[in-house]
C-alpha cells in the first residue's frame, strides 16, 4: 500500500472520529529449512498488515487486517468498537509530531531476501556444526526479511522505519542428548553462523552421560538464555504499567522503594548499540528515550504506552508495541541489567544453559519450578560433568533482592542484552 493510501485512510477516519491512527507493516521474507543436511523446503512470503485505532469522545476503537483492501471495513469496525469502550480517563491524545533523535533504523541494506544468501548462511552453520561430528544435526533454518513499518496519525505523525532481519536456528541430537542454538539480528555482521552450528552440536555432545543430582542447595549459574526467558521476562511483567494499573504486579505502590538488591539496576535503552531492535519511536509514534526502571535497587519507573500513561496521570515512556487486533501492548526495547560483574564460572557451580517450562512460572509472584536442560557441574570455568535430570525452584524477585553476580560478556536477544548470572544457594531437586 502506498503512503497516499495511508493519508486516504486518515482522511476517511477523520470524518467520523476525533483522532485516527494507522500502523502499517509491509514485509517480504524467505525461509530455508534443512533436514538430512540439505534444504528440504523453501518458503516465500510477501504481505502487509494494517492496524487501526480511532478515538471518539476519549473512547478508543481498534481493528486490524492482513488484507489491505479491507481498510475501510477496519475503520468502520473500529468506530463501532469505540462506542462500546469506556472513555479513557485523562486521555491525552495520540502523540503529536516531534523531532526524532539521531540514530539508525534496524536495517541492513546487505540483507536481500534471496535463497542464495540464506543458503550461504545455512552452509556456514553446517560447517560449524561439523566440529562436533558425533552429534547429528536434525534440522536447521535460516530466514531473511526486509520491510517497512509506518506509523501515522491525525496529529501529523508520519514516521517510517526500515527493518531487516536474519534469524538462524539449528538443533542436534547425540544419543539421547539434545542441543540447539539460535540467533537473530537486523544486521548480517552480528550473527555468527559457524558459532551457532558449533554450539548446537557441542551442547548435544557434551550433555551425554549425565549423572544424577543429589537434592540440596547449590550455587547456580544461569546462561544468558535462562536469564532472558525466566528472570527478565517475569521482571518485565512486574514493571509493565498496565499490570501495575490493574493491580497485577508485586511492585504496585512501590515507586521509590527498595525492591531489589542495592547493587542491581535495570534500565531500558532503546538505541543501545548492542541491542537488536533500535527504536527511535515506538509503535504509536512516541519518541523513545532511555528509562531507568530500577536504580541501585530502588524502583524508579514503570513502562507505559499513551493509554496507560493517561490512566496513570503520567506520560508515555514510549514502550508501545502492536498486537494483531490493533491494540497496543507494553514491552521493553532493550533491557540492560547492571550488577557486580565477575567471572561467574570461576567458583564451583551448577551451570544451567536452558530450562524446560520457563513459561509455566508464576508471572505474578515470580515463583518458578522448572526442569534443567544442558546443565553441568563446573569448576574453574570448565564443565566437569553433565547433569542427567534436575529441577530448580525459586523466586525471581527473591533472587534479584538477594544480590547476584553477572558476567561481563552478554548475548543479544530481541528486547534485551543479557549477561550470565550467578545465584548463590538455589534449591535443586534431583
Amino acid at each position: 500500500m502506498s503512503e497516499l493510501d495511508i493519508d486516504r485512510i486518515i482522511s476517511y477516519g477523520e470524518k467520523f472520529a476525533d483522532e485516527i491512527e494507522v500502523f502499517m507493516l509491509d514485509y517480504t521474507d524467505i525461509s530455508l529449512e534443512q533436514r538430512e543436511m540439505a534444504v528440504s523446503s523453501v518458503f516465500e512470503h510477501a504481505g502487509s498488515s494494517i492496524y487501526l485505532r480511532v478515538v471518539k469522545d476519549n473512547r478508543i476503537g481498534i481493528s486490524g487486517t492482513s488484507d489491505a483492501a479491507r481498510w475501510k471495513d477496519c475503520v468502520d469496525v473500529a468506530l463501532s468498537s469505540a462506542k462500546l469502550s469506556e472513555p479513557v480517563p485523562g486521555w491525552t491524545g495520540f502523540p503529536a509530531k516531534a523531532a526524532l533523535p539521531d540514530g539508525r533504523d534496524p536495517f541492513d541494506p546487505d540483507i536481500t531476501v534471496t535463497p542464495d544468501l540464506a543458503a550461504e548462511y545455512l552452509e556456514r552453520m553446517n560447517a560449524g556444526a561439523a566440529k562436533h561430528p558425533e552429534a547429528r544435526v536434525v534440522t536447521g533454518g535460516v530466514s531473511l526479511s526486509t520491510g517497512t513499518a509506518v506509523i501515522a496519525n491525525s496529529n501529523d505523525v508520519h514516521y517510517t522505519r526500515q527493518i531487516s532481519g536474519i534469524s538462524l536456528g539449528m538443533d542436534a541430537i547425540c544419543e539421547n542428548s539434545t542441543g540447539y542454538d539460535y540467533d537473530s539480528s537486523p544486521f548480517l555482521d552480528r550473527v555468527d553462523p559457524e558459532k551457532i552450528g558449533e554450539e548446537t552440536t557441542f551442547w548435544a555432545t557434551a550433555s551425554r552421560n549425565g549423572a544424577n543430582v543429589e537434592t540440596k542447595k547449590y550455587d547456580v549459574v544461569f546462561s544468558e538464555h535462562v536469564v532472558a526467558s525466566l528472570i527478565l521476562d517475569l521482571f518485565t511483567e512486574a514493571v509493565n504499567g498496565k499490570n501495575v494499573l490493574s493491580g497485577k504486579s508485586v511492585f504496585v505502590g512501590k515507586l521509590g522503594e527498595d525492591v531489589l538488591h542495592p547493587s542491581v539496576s535495570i534500565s531500558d535503552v532503546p538505541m543501545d548499540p548492542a541491542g537488536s531492535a533500535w527504536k527511535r519511536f515506538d509503535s504509536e509514534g512516541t519518541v523513545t528515550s532511555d528509562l531507568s526502571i530500577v536504580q541501585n535497587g530502588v524502583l524508579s519507573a514503570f513502562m507505559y504506552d499513551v493509554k496507560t500513561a493517561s490512566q496513570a496521570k503520567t506520560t508515555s515512556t514510549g514502550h508501545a508495541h502492536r498486537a494483531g487486533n490493533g491494540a497496543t501492548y507494553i514491552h521493553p526495547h532493550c533491557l540492560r541489567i547492571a550488577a557486580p560483574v565477575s567471572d561467574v564460572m570461576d567458583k564451583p557451580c551448577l551451570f544451567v544453559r536452558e530450562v524446560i517450562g520457563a513459561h509455566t512460572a508464576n508471572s505474578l509472584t515470580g515463583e518458578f519450578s522448572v526442569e534443567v536442560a544442558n546443565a553441568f557441574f563446573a569448576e574453574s570455568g570448565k564443565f566437569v560433568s553433565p547433569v542427567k535430570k534436575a529441577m530448580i525452584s525459586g523466586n525471581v524477585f527473591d533472587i534479584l533482592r538477594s544480590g547476584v553476580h553477572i558476567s561481563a560478556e552478554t548475548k543479544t536477544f530481541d528486547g534485551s542484552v543479557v549477561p550470565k548470572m550467578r545465584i548463590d544457594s538455589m534449591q535443586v531437586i534431583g
Partner: protein
Amino acid sequence: METIRYYDIRYVRGTVTSIQTENRVIENAGSSFYGKALFRVLGENGWGYYCASSIDMDDKKLKDACIQKAAASARLAGVHADIADVPLGSPRSWVCSAKEQAETPLEEKAAQLLLLEGSAKIPEICSTSARYSEQYQDVIFEDCNGYSSSSSVCRTLFTISAVANRGADMQMNYEQEAVVGPLSLKEYLPYGEKCAKRAVELLDASAVSGGRMPAVLDPAIGGVFAHEAVGHASEGDAVRDGVSVLAGKLGERVGSSLVTIIDDPSMHGYGYEPFDAEGVACGPTELIKNGIMHKYMHSRETLAAVGLDTGDAGHARAEPGMQPLVRMSNTYIKEGDASYDEIIAECRKGVLLIGSRGGQVDPGRGAFQFNAKYGYLIENGETAKMIRDVSLSGDILSVLHNIALCGKERKMSSGMCGKGQSVPVSDGAPHVYLTEALVGGGGNV
C-alpha cells in the same frame, strides 16, 4: 516450467472479535480480519511454499502465478519427499453453526462479560479481568488432482482472572472455557466467583518442598501429561527425524497396561478439524494401546517416510498461511475403572496436582515438565493441606510405567499448543495415580 509432482492451495480467511474487560471496565473491543493463502508445491526434491496475503480463489491466472512461485522455490530444495495416498475429505463433518451467536449484538456479549467479571469481586480480590473472543474461520482447500473441500468453523472462548491480596502476599487464579461452536456467557456466570475464591484460597496455601514422591494428576494436568509427554513424542516428524524417545518402539511396551492414549481431530473438542491441513479425512489414532506403542500421528509426507503401517495421516495442521506440520488436536488418556476415592486412598502419601499452568517437552531427551495451578498434600490416603507453585517433571519412558490407576471419569480442557505455530487443542484424562514422580517446588511442606 518447473517440475510439479503435486500442489495444493489452502486459503484461510476469517474474523476475530474480542472484548477485554479490566476491573469492570471495557478495556477494548473490536474485530480484525485475516486472509492468507498458502500455495504448496512438491517438486523433484522437496517442498516450495508461497504465501499470499489474500486472493480471489476464482482468479485462475493469479493462482497459476502463485503456484509457479512456489514451484520455483521447490526447485531449490534438495531432500526428496513422497506423499502417501490416503483418503481425503471430511466423512464425519460436524455442523457447528454459530449463526445465533454471530447475530447477538456485541453490546450484549460485553454486558454478560462484565457480569461474569463482576461476580469475581469478593473480599480480598484486588484485581479482575476477563476476555471473550469469537473466531469465524473459513478454509478452502483444493489440490492438483481436482479435489476440493471447504469448511466453516467457529471457535469461542472466555477467560477470567482474579488477583487476591492480603498484606504483602498476592496470588492469582484464572479459569477458561474454549469451545468449537457457540458459547453462551450467561451459562458461565458462576465462573467469576469460583475463580476468585480459588485465588483467595491460594493465599493460605503453602509452597511444597520438592522431591520424588507418589502423585495424583487431576483430569486437566493429566491431559497436559498426555499431550506433552506422549503426544509430542508420537508426532511423525519427530519420529522420522529420530528425535523422539518413542521412535522405533511400535509394538513394544512403553507403559503400564492401564495406559491408552488417543488423539482424535474429529472429536468435538477445541482441536476439532473437519479435514486436516492437507485435505485428509480426520479420525482417532490410538497412540498407545494398553501400554503398547501402537501408532504415530502423521502427515502424508511423514506417513510415506516412516511407513504406511506406522500410523495415520490426517494430523497435519497449520496456522493460516503457514506450512502444515504434524500436530495434535484432541488428546486424551482413556478412562480406567478406579473411583476418585480409591485413587487418593491408594496414593496414601504424596501430592494431588490440579489444573495446568502449561508444560513443555524435549521429545528427543524424553524429558517433560509441567506446572499445576495448585494441589493438595495427600496424607494417610486423604487430601490434606492446599499447596501452590508445584510442578512435575519426568522421563517419558519411566513415568508411563508408573501409572498404577486411572479413574472412571474423563474431562477435557482447551488451550493452544505452540510448535513454531500456534493451534487450538484440547487434552484430557481421568484422575491418574503415579507411583513415583519428580515433584518440584521451592517451599517447606
